[in-house]
């Protein structure tokens, strides 16, 4: 009897062993109760029973240890199976084939290569698992056995709580991903495989045991896991900067969902997470496209595209919607009004839309939702990314007039092309752009803003050139007599402006007019500032004459209509204030100025009393200076006295107007 028991124990047939023990205890031992050894045997039985309990528990512990190792494989097989059902290449969701290990080094003593045990193990494992379902991969009998034994021994609850506790610990372990998971797709695969493996095993336990775990318990465990998974994926996907990796991760998540759905686990929250990840994917795309746009701007030559052959022409009109009869009819070489960056930018916006759409595939979204998403993110691309790139391009220091003008022209053609982008989106999403709920693309207004920014920079660039000329201005403020001709710097400046307006034939009329007007204003201001500059205390009659000669040149330039389309006199108006200042200073007509001040028909209405004060001070100083060398003659003394009186009255005028 004892021998039979021993045998059963060795074969791990714990339940029969237990039965044998029972038989021994209840049937055989009472028959021999009168012997002393019976008492000893009774004591032994308790110990033997504990031994059986321990042995089955030790097997369970092995199982638990093994299941950790295999659950990743179980998960992988389950996921492959689902992928296969959905027509996806199963290798996409599986780990890459491990390279065969290098043969072990020959035995140093015998010189023979030995096949190691592990090698054999992996071989057997690989060959056998291909078609196996998860359950077939693992031998669950230690669990059943142990559960059974404990129940028989009346310790079912003890076992149940032990099992659940151990498995919960394991769940926590597999829910904690490797810190570098985000680096590779395989990192994500490993994480998903382990989780699926874990829940497939639990699902199996639920269905093959009675009461070891309940569906309520499993649901609770899944809920906990799901929160953790969502948090982990949210954190790790945030590290991702590669859009194609993100697309792969998306597919993995979808198949992760499909697999678990198959086992009845709810995964809606993961689909919600995918929408979040999509926004992030779009952000990554935008960063990518920012570089693309910057590269395009970097490469451009800011010269209208010239086409020599029909093939070149066709190549561009197929990617960029541009129809112009004049260009169409003109012979080769043809010229487009815009430079290369126009078709390239347009093409890239379309590429971006395609890339956006890629993520929305398989997300169970309606066409309307996809349309809305595409329009929204295209708007972001246009109003944030492209607009930002254009703005930094336009502000780039050292950008020449030619480039700025070309940029302004380019934005006009991109603006026109916006409508085609809207049509393009409609054609893929199937949602008409006339539909009421559809968000309109904001490209048109963005390009309009960019253009006005570029135009502003044109005016500034021109003013900057004028400033450079002004720095060459070299007035002698004590000049006794003018040189008799306009200053060299001014002649150069006027010639430069003339040739500039002549060269930039592609400058739109309106922009040319504004540029010309702003240039004239800037010149007038600059000369006025020189004249009234506080650092020079003196203004001689000769110097005033010289400035007058220069201003005459400016007025002539303005009257010759350097740019067509001005109303008569409009451009000359920019020099009126300066003209009045000079007239007043040259004519010494202070009595008129003072008498007519504030009246309707005032010849010097544009000259402020402050300006007049500065003028008189400087002129008066100039007289003092000459006085150092020669004693003042009578008329000069009288003039000096007059100027002093005028100055007094002007200052009174300044004060009174300040009080008003």
């Amino acid at each position, binding site marked *: 009897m004892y021998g039979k028991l021993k045998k059963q124990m060795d074969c791990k047939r714990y339940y029969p062993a237990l039965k044998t023990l029972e038989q021994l205890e209840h049937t055989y031992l009472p028959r021999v109760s009168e012997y002393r050894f019976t008492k000893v045997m009774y004591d032994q039985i308790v110990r033997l029973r504990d031994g059986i309990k321990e042995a089955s528990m030790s097997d369970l512990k092995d199982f638990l240890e093994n299941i950790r190792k295999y659950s990743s494989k179980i998960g992988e097989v389950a996921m492959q199976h689902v992928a296969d059902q959905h027509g996806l290449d199963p290798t996409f969701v599986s780990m890459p084939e491990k390279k065969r290990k290098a043969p072990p080094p020959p035995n140093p003593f015998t010189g023979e290569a030995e096949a190691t045990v592990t090698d054999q193990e992996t071989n057997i494992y690989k060959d056998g698992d291909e078609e196996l379902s998860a359950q077939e991969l693992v031998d669950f009998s230690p669990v059943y056995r142990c559960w059974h034994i404990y129940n028989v021994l009346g310790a079912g609850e003890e076992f149940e709580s032990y099992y659940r506790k151990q498995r919960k610990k394991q769940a926590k372990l597999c829910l904690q991903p490797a810190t570098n998971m985000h680096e590779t797709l395989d990192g994500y695969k490993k994480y998903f495989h382990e989780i699926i493996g874990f829940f497939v095993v639990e699902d199996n336990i639920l269905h093959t045991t009675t009461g070891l775990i309940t569906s309520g318990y499993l649901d609770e465990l899944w809920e906990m896991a799901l929160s953790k998974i969502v948090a982990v994926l949210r954190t790790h996907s945030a590290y991702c900067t590669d859009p194609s990796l993100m697309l792969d991760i998306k597919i993995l998540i979808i198949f992760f969902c499909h697999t678990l759905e198959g086992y009845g686990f709810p995964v809606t929250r993961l689909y919600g997470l995918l929408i979040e990840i999509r926004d992030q994917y779009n952000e990554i795309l935008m960063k990518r496209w920012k570089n693309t746009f910057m590269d395009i701007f*970097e*490469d*451009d*030559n*800011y*010269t209208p595209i010239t086409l020599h052959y029909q093939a070149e022409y066709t190549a561009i009109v197929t990617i960029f919607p541009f129809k112009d009869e004049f260009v169409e009819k003109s012979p080769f070489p043809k010229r487009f009004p815009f430079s290369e960056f126009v078709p390239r930018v347009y093409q890239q916006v379309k590429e971006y839309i395609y890339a956006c759409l890629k993520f929305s595939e398989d997300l169970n979204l309606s066409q309307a939702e996809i349309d809305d998403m595409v329009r929204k993110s295209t708007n972001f691309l246009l109003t944030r990314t492209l607009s930002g790139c254009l703005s930094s391009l336009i502000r780039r220091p*050292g950008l*020449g*007039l*030619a*480039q700025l003008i070309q940029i302004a022209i380019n934005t006009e053609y991109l603006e026109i092309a916006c409508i085609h982008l809207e049509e393009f989106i409609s054609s893929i999403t199937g949602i008409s752009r006339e539909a009421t709920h559809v968000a309109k693309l904001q490209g048109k207004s963005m390009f309009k803003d960019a253009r006005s920014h570029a135009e502003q920079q044109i005016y500034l660039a021109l003013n900057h*050139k004028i400033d*450079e000329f002004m*720095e*060459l*201005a*070299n*007035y002698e*403020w*004590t000049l006794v007599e003018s040189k008799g001709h306009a200053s*060299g710097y001014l*002649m*150069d400046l006027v*010639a*430069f402006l003339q*040739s*500039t307006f*002549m*060269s*930039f034939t592609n400058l739109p009329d309106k922009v040319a007019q504004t540029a010309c007007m702003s240039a004239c204003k800037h010149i007038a201001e600059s000369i006025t500032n*020189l004249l009234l*500059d506080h*650092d*020079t205390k003196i203004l001689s009659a000769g110097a005033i004459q010289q400035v007058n000669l220069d201003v005459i040149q400016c007025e002539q330039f303005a009257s010759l209509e350097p740019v067509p389309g001005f109303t008569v006199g409009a451009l000359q108006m920019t020099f009126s204030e300066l003209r009045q200042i000079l007239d007043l200073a040259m004519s010494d007509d202070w009595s008129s100025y003072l008498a007519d001040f504030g009246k309707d028909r005032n010849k010097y209405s544009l000259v402020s009393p402050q300006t007049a004060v500065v003028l008189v001070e400087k002129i008066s100083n100039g007289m003092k*200076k000459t006085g150092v060398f020669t004693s003042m003659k009578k008329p000069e003394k009288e003039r000096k006295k007059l100027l002093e009186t005028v100055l007094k009255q002007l200052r009174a005028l300044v004060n009174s107007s300040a009080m008003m």
Partner: protein
Amino acid sequence: MAKTYDFLFKLLLIGDSGVGKTCVLFRFSEDAFNSTFISTIGIDFKIRTIELDGKKIKLQIWDTAGQERFRTITTAYYRGAMGIMLVYDITNEKSFENIKNWIRNIEEHASSDVERMILGNKCDCDDRRGVSRQRGEQLAVEYGVKFMETSAKAGINVEQAFFTLARDIKAKMENKLASHPSKGGGTQLKKNEPQKKSSTWKCQLL
């Protein structure tokens, strides 16, 4: 108004389209290089102040479009120039042969005593060289002007070229003043005048 310079020299860059005039100027004024070819429209200029023998000299350097269609606009700038850089591209034989035509242009439109200099640009592209250094030198000798091979991209000789031209203009001008004391007398008198902080004057050939 306080003057910021002693002399103003006006220089002009001419040569075929694409030889790198704008790049040579960009290297000199900004010490930078941009590889994208953006052709100049009409005319543009940059100003850089240099110091020669303790004198502050402003160089106003006019950059012309090489393209034929801007010829009328650009030739108008020859007359005011005191120095002209003739630029060709050592990898482009045609641009070298055209130097003769450009010199003819100078003779026709520029002032007779204008300082000239020939630059063979893109000398960093030795593997694509189409014009030997000797041929460049030869041409320069024939016309009695200085010659240098430059690279705006690699920053070779650009600085030296402009300084050489500026130094030659300065020397010529000082010679002229010495040989015509009556003409320059007014300026010299000003120099000694106590009220003037510095004798600064502008030299222009109009």
